[in-house]
């Protein structure tokens, strides 16, 4: 670890912290339907959407109606994307003549993008047409990101007042987030990316003759716009197989910094939005602090693990000065790769600029654990916020047990129903991750997919189920993911991780919305101070540790021990 490395990390984190407040306030006004500078320009488009779709933006929805609308549009979009991928051969903008995807792969890919997972069982440049990337995947990147933010807004509104029957209008939330936040920001980012060298072209792949006379075919495409929303919406599905490690997705240090910023900008900003909606900015900052402290620790551990290099290779005569460079790009080096590892898994992004499969054992443990904690540090756009609110409910419940009082959060009494729903949501994730990985390591049809042997093989399988359930999409990518078993199994894990988590959370919001909002008294546990921040950090780590430490100790921790004993597989 070097001061220069830390200076780069500090620069990115400072940018995120500086933009959180203005961006969070802006998103809050967009969600409230308040006039914004862009409203004058795009207002006609917004109203046009409502008129054509028959939407009354002022009509609130109960939590059930909100959830139903959310599920309906995502289900319809899933079917559409599945059809597009199967039929891409017959659709325009397919200069390479890509064939339609197989049914399991199309199912997996469509599910992956609908759930904001963006797991890549396909290789973009080898399997998808330009058209599929544009009107298939790019549109999904917008829609699933907007869905997440809308759901977070609905949950926040549940805490806003007393006796609420309604959580807002899903269609209006979706339209406003897309038009006023995601679309303009993606356009600006895309122009920057193009200027730095990310392609935006419909030309077919070109054939070059290298200096040594060999033929090199270079894959191109309309990359830049998809790249922008891929990161801003914490989607993470790359245009190319190598994702943000590919020089055409991330050509230099500047694009890397902007990509890193755009992964976490909205998730952190949403804590400010949350504070605005619930009417107490300090509550948002407390969540911001929890996220910030834990992700900072995670960044430090990955950086430390990777900077030392691989002792097995050092023993062979490799200079450890550059760190563990297997699966990393020279232009990013260790600090900017380590930061990417932590931020892409602290959120539900899953884009990578280094191959996670080749991380050192502890360097690979951290991203896996960050996803298993529920991706709340700071989490995906929207999903991070409603995820950490679930943990906050559990934290006040634990505190309430200690002092024997009915817990409250933001003036709402947290009772058996909410705690049960919160635990249900959390346990669905555990069930899918550990159940799926446990079953798979016992099935030859699944273990045939593993590329690595020994404890690292177990890590590979555990990471796959963790990533799919957590809707992350990064991978220990040696695993052969495109098999019917994993395509379908992981597709179901993504579905559970997204919607089986989201529906109980919306139910909590609906239940809390209807309760009276109590004014805090002398006996109320304040949820904006250091004590609450410490308690929430403790609850997150203890719950995550209790659930996943046994599995992690058989994978990355065992691998670390054998590495120190110089054992190979």
């Amino acid at each position, binding site marked *: 670890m070097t001061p220069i490395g830390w200076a780069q990390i500090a620069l990115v984190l400072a940018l995120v912290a500086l933009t959180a407040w203005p961006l969070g306030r802006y998103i809050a006004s967009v969600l409230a339907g308040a006039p914004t500078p862009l409203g004058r320009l795009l207002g006609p488009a917004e109203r046009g959407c409502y008129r054509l779709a028959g939407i009354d933006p002022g009509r609130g929805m109960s939590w059930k109606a909100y959830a139903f609308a959310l599920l309906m549009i995502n289900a319809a979009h899933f079917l559409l994307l599945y059809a597009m991928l199967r039929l891409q051969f017959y659709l325009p903008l397919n200069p390479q003549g890509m064939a339609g995807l197989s049914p399991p792969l199309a199912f997996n890919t469509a599910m992956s993008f609908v759930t904001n997972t963006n797991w890549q069982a396909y290789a973009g440049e080898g399997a998808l047409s330009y058209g599929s990337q544009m009107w298939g995947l790019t549109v999904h990147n917008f829609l699933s990101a907007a869905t997440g933010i809308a759901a977070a807004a609905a949950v926040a509104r549940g805490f806003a007042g007393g006796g609420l029957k309604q959580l807002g209008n899903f269609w209006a939330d979706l339209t406003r987030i897309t038009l006023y936040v995601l679309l303009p920001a993606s356009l600006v980012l895309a122009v920057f990316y193009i200027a730095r060298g990310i392609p935006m072209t419909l030309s077919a792949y070109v054939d070059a003759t290298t200096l040594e006379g060999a033929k090199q075919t270079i894959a191109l495409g309309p990359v830049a716009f998809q790249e922008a929303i891929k990161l801003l919406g914490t989607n993470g599905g790359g245009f190319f197989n190598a994702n943000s490690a590919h020089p055409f997705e991330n050509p230099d240090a500047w694009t890397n910094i902007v990509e890193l910023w755009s992964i976490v900008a909205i998730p952190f900003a949403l804590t400010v939005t949350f504070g605005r909606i619930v009417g107490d900015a300090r509550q948002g900052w407390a969540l911001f602090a929890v996220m910030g402290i834990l992700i900072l620790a995670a960044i430090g551990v990955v950086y430390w693990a990777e900077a030392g290099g691989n002792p097995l290779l050092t023993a062979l005569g490799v200079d*450890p000065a550059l760190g563990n460079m*297997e699966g990393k790009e020279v232009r990013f080096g260790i600090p900017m790769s380590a930061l990417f590892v932590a931020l892409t898994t602290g959120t539900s992004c899953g884009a990578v600029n280094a191959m996670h499969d080749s991380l050192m054992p502890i360097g690979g443990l951290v991203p896996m654990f960050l996803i298993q904690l529920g991706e709340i540090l700071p989490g995906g756009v929207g999903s991070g916020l409603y995820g950490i609110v679930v943990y906050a409910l559990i934290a006040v419940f634990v505190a309430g047990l200690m002092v024997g009082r009915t817990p409250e959060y933001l003036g709402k009494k947290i009772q058996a129903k909410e705690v049960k729903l919160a635990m249900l949501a959390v346990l669905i994730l555990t069930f899918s991750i550990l159940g799926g990985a446990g079953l798979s390591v016992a099935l030859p049809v699944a273990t045939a997919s593993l590329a690595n042997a020994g404890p690292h093989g177990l890590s590979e399988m555990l990471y796959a189920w963790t990533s799919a359930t957590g809707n992350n999409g990064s991978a220990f990518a040696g695993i052969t993911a495109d098999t019917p078993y994993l395509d379908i199994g992981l597709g179901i894990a993504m579905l559970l991780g997204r919607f089986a988590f989201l529906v109980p959370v919306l139910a909590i919001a609906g239940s809390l919305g209807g309760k009276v909002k109590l004014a805090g008294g002398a006996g109320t546990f304040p949820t904006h101070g250091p004590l609450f921040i410490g308690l929430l950090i403790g609850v997150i780590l203890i719950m995550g540790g209790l659930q996943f430490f046994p599995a992690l100790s058989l994978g990355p921790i065992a691998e670390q021990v054998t590495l120190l004993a110089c054992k190979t597989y």
Partner: protein
Amino acid sequence: MISTLRPAITLIVLFTLLTGIAIPLALTGAAGVVFPSQAGGSLVERDGKLVGSALIGQNFTSDKYFWSRPSAITDPDPNDSTKQVAAPYDATNSNGSNLGPTQKALVDRVTADIAKLGPAPVPADAVTTSASGLDPDISPANAARQVARVARARGMPEDKLRALLAVHTEAPALGFIGEAHVNVLALNLALDAQ
């Protein structure tokens, strides 16, 4: 049900037209005018012939050239599609080795490469494969170790080569952003132009 279906389908159609078709096409058109080179893949021509992309690495094996990092890309064997054959720097199939740190395959590969490159210590990037398999850059230390070999093969004085290398070494921006690196294709093109 119908009252939910109508907004769902209408919004999908509108967003597809907007974010999936109209804006990407307009952006592609505008980029082709404002940033024709970058938007087209930063392609590099020499004497009117396309020799590659400034951003994408190439495979170099001749002693006359500086070598890129090892690339882990493999393609299906044309004779037997169940097998994979090495295809370093195939820019239609980006990938890394995905070998974990304790894998024997990794240790064996590095052992063989060090035997060729010796003597120790070897810069890490010279014997490790990149994440994309298309890394256009090498570290300055890696490039410096290759100077003697290239100078011998070309009959050039080493000092002249070192000066050329210094010109093509990109230091971190503002002293701390990014890593020092050498773009191998640009350096080798400059060598050929000498």
